[in-house]
């Protein structure tokens, strides 16, 4: 299988740290308190790392939450491509008032934008955040919706047939970003 390591553990760490610095810089002196919300699955540990790093840099870690988008997908039960499986429903934890925080959504890969659309919809079922921003580790292009990230770890031009896989130490045991070429699976 043709899987290429695009980002190794060291680069990975530096990339996440750089995003954390950018977030701190942009939110310095802002009236709105910041909150970090990870999108299941990989966005959750990434959000936790960002929150911890921001805490390190500023002396105060922002509130951390997680959001699951399974119930907000745009393709539920539409009828084609069904096989005997259902999307996993993850846990949503937002134990701070999102109506009084600038919410930073965090995900690993930005692709069509559909996941982010769903996450924003889910978020608004919990309140009315005054500001929502998006941080992603990888932007691989091919957007199908007018969605744009505020913080990007790495811009990665890809072909549609390729596959970007992010491994996180918390889940997969190691930090890396892989690119699998078309037909590899």
């Amino acid at each position, binding site marked *: 299988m043709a899987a290429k390591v695009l980002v190794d553990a060291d680069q990975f760490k530096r990339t996440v740290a750089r995003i954390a610095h950018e977030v701190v810089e942009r939110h310095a002196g802002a009236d709105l308190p910041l909150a970090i919300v990870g999108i299941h699955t990989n966005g959750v540990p990434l959000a936790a790392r960002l929150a911890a790093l921001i805490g390190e840099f500023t002396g105060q870690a922002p509130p951390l939450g997680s959001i699951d988008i399974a119930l907000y997908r745009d393709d*539920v*039960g539409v009828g084609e491509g069904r096989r*005997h499986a259902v999307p996993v429903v*993850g846990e949503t934890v937002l134990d701070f008032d999102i109506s009084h925080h600038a919410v930073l959504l965090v995900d690993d890969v930005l692709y069509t934008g559909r996941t982010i659309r769903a996450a924003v919809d889910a978020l608004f*079922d919990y309140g009315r955040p005054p500001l929502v921003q998006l941080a992603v580790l990888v932007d691989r292009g091919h957007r199908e919706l007018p969605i744009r990230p505020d913080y990007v770890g790495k811009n990665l031009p890809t072909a549609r047939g390729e596959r970007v896989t992010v491994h996180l130490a918390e889940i997969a045991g190691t930090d890396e970003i892989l690119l699998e070429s078309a037909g590899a699976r």
Partner: protein
Amino acid sequence: MKRRSLLSMDDLDRQSIARILRNAYRFTEVMGRENKKVPTLRGRTVINLFFEASTRTSTSFELAAKRLSADVVSIKGAGSSVEKGESLKDTILTLNAYGPDIFVIRHGGVGACHLASRFTDAAVLNAGDGKHEHPSQALLDLYTIEREVGPIDGLHIAIVGDVSHSRVARSGILGFTTMGARVTLVGPPTLLPWRAEEALGVETSCDIRDIADADVVYVLRMQHERMGDGGYVPSLREYASRFGVTHERLRPGQRVMHAGPINRGVELSGALADDPATLIERQAANGLVVRMAILYDLLAEPSAAGIAEGVELADAVAA
């Protein structure tokens, strides 16, 4: 394309049951929000078809579908064309013309849901067919035990009373044993299924004292309406004195369940029915999230595009 149905607890393996129970727990979070509705099943159509009386099941299925944003039509046997003598087959064929995604059916006849599923590509969810099965009840019972008592694997569950006429018992036994519980059926021999030990993998007893070892005592309703001319028990009073579950017959720590409606003073004493330490109220309350999880499980299969985008999937087993 034909959708997956839930006709019997036999349709679900351990992994599928665990997935539904896990999703039910996720829905408790949704029910705790100010906005209790999620858009998951918008555009899907649910037809509830209840040929038999029901409060809990029909209400919770209707509300579950609405909380998931599906369009719901609820039809009762009384007041529909069924009263004019329309057959189940014709009713399904007629309603099928409106393109439903799922039929939720309660019917007095054993196998009615199996029959219905032959005439539609929509999913069919058995909400009780005669004395046969009632899978959504078994799932909410499993969920209630898991939340309130603990992991089901290794628990001892005594099912007391009219097992032979009980769809709750049949589905319960299948679900409990699949999840690794030990099950003992307790009741008069006339109300226990023949050779239950070999057929169902359970123990049986005709002595109420044998509930002593159980962690959970599941009390069944005496099904007068399914007993015909009777002859199963000498009298309800006699039954109550021999098998009625009371505080005196329980030891501390045992949890009591009942699917309702309760015949007070027959299978369950009035005092016990009113005791908040039983799980009976929890069962009714949990019906909603569990039925949301079942609808989600049958209707939320993702599109090819979603699969290509790499949505994380939990495998389901074909019915």
